[in-house]
């Protein structure tokens, strides 16, 4: 029998990165209200992401997309017992302060919302609540980690139902990590320059062969097979946005994507879970999107 011998420390890197470790192998689902949050929890989501409109609606309705109404976030926190994440605009540190005051479990500084600052991201070390940030390549991921991100998600192209950008981004990040592993120490200085990331962090990734934080993937995942594809490409877990609540049968599709994420390496399970799901979200081909409408190009 024992006791506590020192004071408690909260908001540490280990605590922030640790929560993401516990989410691994799971699916994080976008929800816009308490009812959707409950459906997601019942389907086996490891966490929910609160936002005012799912990306597909942000795309079709246009206008400025911002942090959700605090009442909606409170409603979602009250409705579920799994972690609740919420999105803040890139660089909008006051939205982040508000979300921390609302006691969300994770903040997504997200390109899906309209950026509030086209130069600077949020200084995430200033917060006790952890942050997840999007990245399209290793340099971007390492810059976000330098700013204090405790989790990275590859961006993909949100609100499209087209998984091709998600595939490109996770392959790019994984490929660049593999390239670093084969470099000698003198080459790593140049790699750091090219990646526009701190040398210490680049060397750490080269030695360990992975990011120092958990890497999920996002943006365009709409089917169980899409989720399993992301896992086989080396993602630690999957974010699903519009793919669930823009489909014909959200509860069933959500549960199917959870199963496929766990049993990503078993085609029989993925086949079984893909049956009879009804219509997937209609989707947009990323190649049909004019460049200004590509969300993944926001953030730098």
């Amino acid at each position: 029998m024992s006791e506590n011998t020192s004071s408690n420390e909260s908001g540490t890197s280990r605590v922030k990165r640790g929560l993401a470790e516990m989410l691994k192998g799971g699916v994080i689902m976008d929800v816009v209200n308490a009812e959707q949050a409950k459906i997601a929890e019942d389907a086996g989501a490891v966490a929910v992401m609160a936002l005012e409109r799912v990306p597909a609606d942000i795309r079709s309705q246009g206008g400025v997309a911002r942090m959700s109404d605090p009442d909606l976030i409170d409603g979602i926190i009250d409705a579920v017992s799994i972690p609740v994440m919420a999105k803040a605009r890139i660089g909008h540190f006051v939205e982040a302060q508000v979300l921390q005051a609302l006691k969300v479990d994770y903040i997504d500084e997200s390109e899906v919302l309209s950026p509030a600052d086209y130069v600077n991201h949020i200084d995430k070390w200033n917060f006790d609540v952890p942050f997840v940030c999007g990245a399209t390549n290793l340099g971007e991921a390492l810059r976000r980690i330098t700013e204090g991100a405790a989790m990275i998600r590859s961006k993909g192209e949100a609100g499209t139902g087209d998984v091709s950008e998600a595939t490109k981004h996770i392959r790019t990040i994984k490929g660049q990590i593999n390239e670093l592993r084969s470099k000698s120490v003198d080459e790593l200085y140049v790699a750091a320059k090219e990646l526009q990331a701190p040398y210490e962090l680049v060397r750490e990734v080269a030695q360990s062969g992975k990011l120092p934080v958990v890497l999920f993937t996002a943006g365009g995942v709409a089917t169980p097979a899409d989720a399993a594809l992301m896992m086989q490409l080396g993602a630690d877990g999957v974010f699903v946005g519009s793919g669930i609540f823009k489909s014909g049968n959200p509860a069933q599709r959500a549960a199917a994507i959870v199963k496929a994420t766990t049993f990503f390496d078993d085609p029989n399970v993925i086949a079984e879970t893909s049956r009879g799901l009804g219509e997937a979200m209609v989707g947009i081909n990323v190649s049909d999107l004019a460049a200004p409408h590509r969300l993944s190009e926001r953030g730098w």
Partner: protein
Amino acid sequence: MAGNPSVDQLPIGVLALQGDFREHLHVLQQLGETAVAVKSPEQLEHIAALIIPGGESSVIDKLSRLYGLFEPIRAAIHAGLPVYGTCAGLIMLADTVEDSIEGQQSFGGLDVVVRRNAFGSQTDSFETDLSIPELGENPVHAVFIRAPVVESVGARARALATLDDGRIVAVEQGNLLGTSFHPEITGDTRFHEYFVRRVRATQ
């Protein structure tokens, strides 16, 4: 005691449905143990012990029932399989779970009442040092992430560690061990060694 070489060679399983199971596999390998990721009921017959990792307990419960692992694990615990659960794993081992989601079940085995998310949201997550004489003189650095606490300990279980305010955060009962915190992410392998010693001693 260790007379049966075939049992001695059985690996230690880590339930690999969701959560930080890779960290547990890694710690076991560091200790020189053979470790396997358990995802199907057949594998339960070929392990000497099981670790239930940190993760989301409602998800681990749901997936274990979907894939026919729930009843076999419950039966194996009842039959004496040594099991160690961290955080969500402790919740899965508790006979009674408070603040669970509707319909959530646990494998049970530990005669304790555990409360989910007992400290609040993520901003209330913390790390601290615990002194646990059973594990040696140096304090154990413990990381609590949206952690559960043991609200009460029944006659068959025993508290191993408490916080300053008296709340119980580690328990044991025969072959079962549970911690609210995550030794698998701190690099301190003493809890795993404590568990492995017990597993190998019972063979």
